[in-house]
């Protein structure tokens, strides 16, 4: 990292982050963030920022959002004591069950909040990008609920590996546009959504799905996702009488992680662990472990840690999980890493697939491949920290990953002979 922050500056920045004084009025989290957008979008982003600060402070708007989160999304989501995993890992494991939220992932918290905001702002249509398809499905559902037409940009590669979600978006009335440019994954989908927004900055609302992008998106998404951490904190206190020793979440762009971490930042006793996608391994291009291997740069409107080469070209990434397959990360995560408040590690494709199977077997829960990275990180953490209480953000369910899983994990039908031979 090229960013120098003295210990005193770090303490100040953390205090300001906890007091919700960051981002500052320029959209900065210390050195990170900002608003590096094409000139055509600058007035639209400035208008969006005004409305974000207005509506997130508006009691009527927030009450309506809470009511919809309760009656339509199904919040609060459960906090499950994972008895099987606890026993296997020698820890007390709790799962914050965002897989139980409507449409099957935490993405709906943000999509609903922003769809309501788009409605207040009089948007004629909504555009969104999606990687794993979870944000696309959530946006399609929220837009159907609110009554605004919606177009979702999705990389052609992701359309292949997350086919069930494409059908779901269609059923929910969204138009899905296959993005054939660039790397044909989440990054190219974001490029294309921005291009579409540039053509209609006044009539279209860009419903960005992660805690990335130009100001005010990282802040808006953090606020809408913080329901995860706020609920989990009071639920674990209710169930156990104490706070966890560690909270762990997977990090791609970082929306579920910031939603879990942000409300826990002030609890100094809670260690925070972000788990990035380690892909096939540490070589450049083989993973999406941005914070482990990246350096600060500008992509998609903000200054944050990124994977790029010596010429400034953004690095192609790999992860078995489409939702983590992204070369950047939200600016608040970059700051939290620089401050040392959150430790970021990575889990490989294999680690994640193993953790997914273990969670299925031990808990009867099929997690999303993204969430399986958090489980893998937790398993590794537990090895070195026996007997501790671990809170894991289970960001979504794995139904959408069936095409990928059937490629990587042999089906029992195909193993019949071998299985019998072992009997």
């Amino acid at each position, binding site marked *: 990292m090229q960013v120098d922050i003295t210990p005193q500056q770090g303490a100040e920045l953390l205090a300001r982050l906890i007091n919700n004084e960051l981002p500052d009025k*320029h959209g900065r989290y210390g050195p990170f963030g*900002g*608003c*590096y*957008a*094409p*000139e*055509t979008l*600058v*007035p*639209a982003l400035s208008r969006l920022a005004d409305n974000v600060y207005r509506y997130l402070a508006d009691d009527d708007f927030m009450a309506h959002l809470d009511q919809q989160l309760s009656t339509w999304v199904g919040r609060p989501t459960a906090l499950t004591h994972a008895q099987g995993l606890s026993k296997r890992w020698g820890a007390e494991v709790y799962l914050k069950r965002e897989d139980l939220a409507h449409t099957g992932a935490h993405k709906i918290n943000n999509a609903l909040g922003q769809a309501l905001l788009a409605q207040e702002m009089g948007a004629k249509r909504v555009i969104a990008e999606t990687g794993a398809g979870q944000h696309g499905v959530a946006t399609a559902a929220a837009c159907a609920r609110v009554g605004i037409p919606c177009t979702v940009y999705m990389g052609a590669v992701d359309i292949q590996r997350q086919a069930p979600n494409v059908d779901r978006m269609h059923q929910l009335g969204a138009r899905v546009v296959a993005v054939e*440019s*660039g790397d044909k994954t989440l*990054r*190219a989908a*974001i*490029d294309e959504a*921005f*291009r579409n927004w*540039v*053509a*209609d*900055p*006044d009539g279209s609302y860009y419903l960005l799905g992660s805690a990335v992008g130009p100001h005010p998106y990282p802040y808006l998404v953090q606020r809408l996702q913080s329901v995860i951490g706020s609920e989990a904190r009071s639920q674990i206190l209710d169930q156990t009488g104490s706070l966890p020793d560690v909270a762990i979440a997977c990090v791609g762009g970082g929306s579920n992680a910031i939603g879990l971490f942000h409300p826990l930042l002030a609890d100094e006793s809670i260690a925070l662990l972000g788990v990035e996608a380690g892909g096939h391994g540490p070589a450049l291009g083989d993973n999406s472990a941005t914070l482990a291997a990246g350096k600060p*740069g*500008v*992509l*998609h*409107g903000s200054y944050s840690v*990124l994977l*790029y*080469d*010596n*010429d*400034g*070209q*953004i690095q192609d990434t790999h992860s078995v999980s489409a939702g983590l397959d992204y070369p950047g990360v939200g600016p608040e995560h970059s700051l939290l890493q620089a401050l040392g408040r959150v430790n970021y590690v990575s889990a490989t494709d294999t680690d994640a697939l193993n953790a997914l199977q273990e969670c299925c077997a031990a808990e009867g829960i099929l997690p999303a491949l993204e969430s399986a990275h958090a489980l893998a990180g937790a398993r590794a953490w537990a090895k070195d920290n026996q007997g501790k209480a671990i809170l894991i953000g289970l960001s979504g369910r794995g139904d959408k990953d069936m095409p990928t899983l059937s490629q990587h994990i042999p089906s029992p039908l195909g193993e019949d002979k071998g299985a019998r031979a072992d009997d």
Partner: protein
Amino acid sequence: MSKLLPREQITAALEAANTNNKVALVPFITAGYPDKDAFISTLKAIATEGDVVEIGVPFSDPMADGVTIQRSSHAAIAAGVSLHWILDELTAAEDLGAPVVLMSYLNPLLAFGYEALAKQCIAAGVCGFIVPDLPWEESAEFRAVMDKYGLALVQLVTPVTPDDRLEMLCKGSQGFVYAVTITGITGGDVALPPTVTDYLDQVKSHTSVPVCAGFGVRHASQVENLGHHANGVIVGSALVEQLEAGADPAPFLRDLRS
């Protein structure tokens, strides 16, 4: 007479075209595309017809660009074109006879380092930059380095820029003001909106440097129409498509002003 600063050379070249009763022409190419080896010879050919030459530094994620520039950028990167290579080629080449402006997204400039970049620009004869993802509010650090070396940081303005912001950007722009003609990305083939002339007149009223209109400029009729309201026109995607098709760029550019 003292030598003009690099940024003043841009302004002077555009004004010289107007003095000859012509609309200034700013051809754009993606560096090293479609043929890396022909980079300098292509530049020379377009510099003969153009008054200022704009060179696109390819970037992996050109989010303000349409399909043509996306295609040319990705192909150029695959062929090994980088900002270092471009500056080395320009440094080695003889004078093109027209000032050169680089169009680059911010990350390649960050990766190069601003100070080292400015120094090498002076050596290479580059006079300024257009940075489509660097709005005014984020530009202080880069602008300070540009100022130190007399290089231009050209500001873009658009049809949706509010009037007070338009005034600020026009006053801050160096070399020329880049007036985006449409609300959209580069390379479209649509009729320019009828309001474009009023908009260009308004842009001109705010600035003392020349105004160049760009995005979606493809035909001689557009150039003529825009020429009544802007000092120059920028032709990018349409020229890149000519080069892709193997056409000689010179007659195409000449015909735009006839």
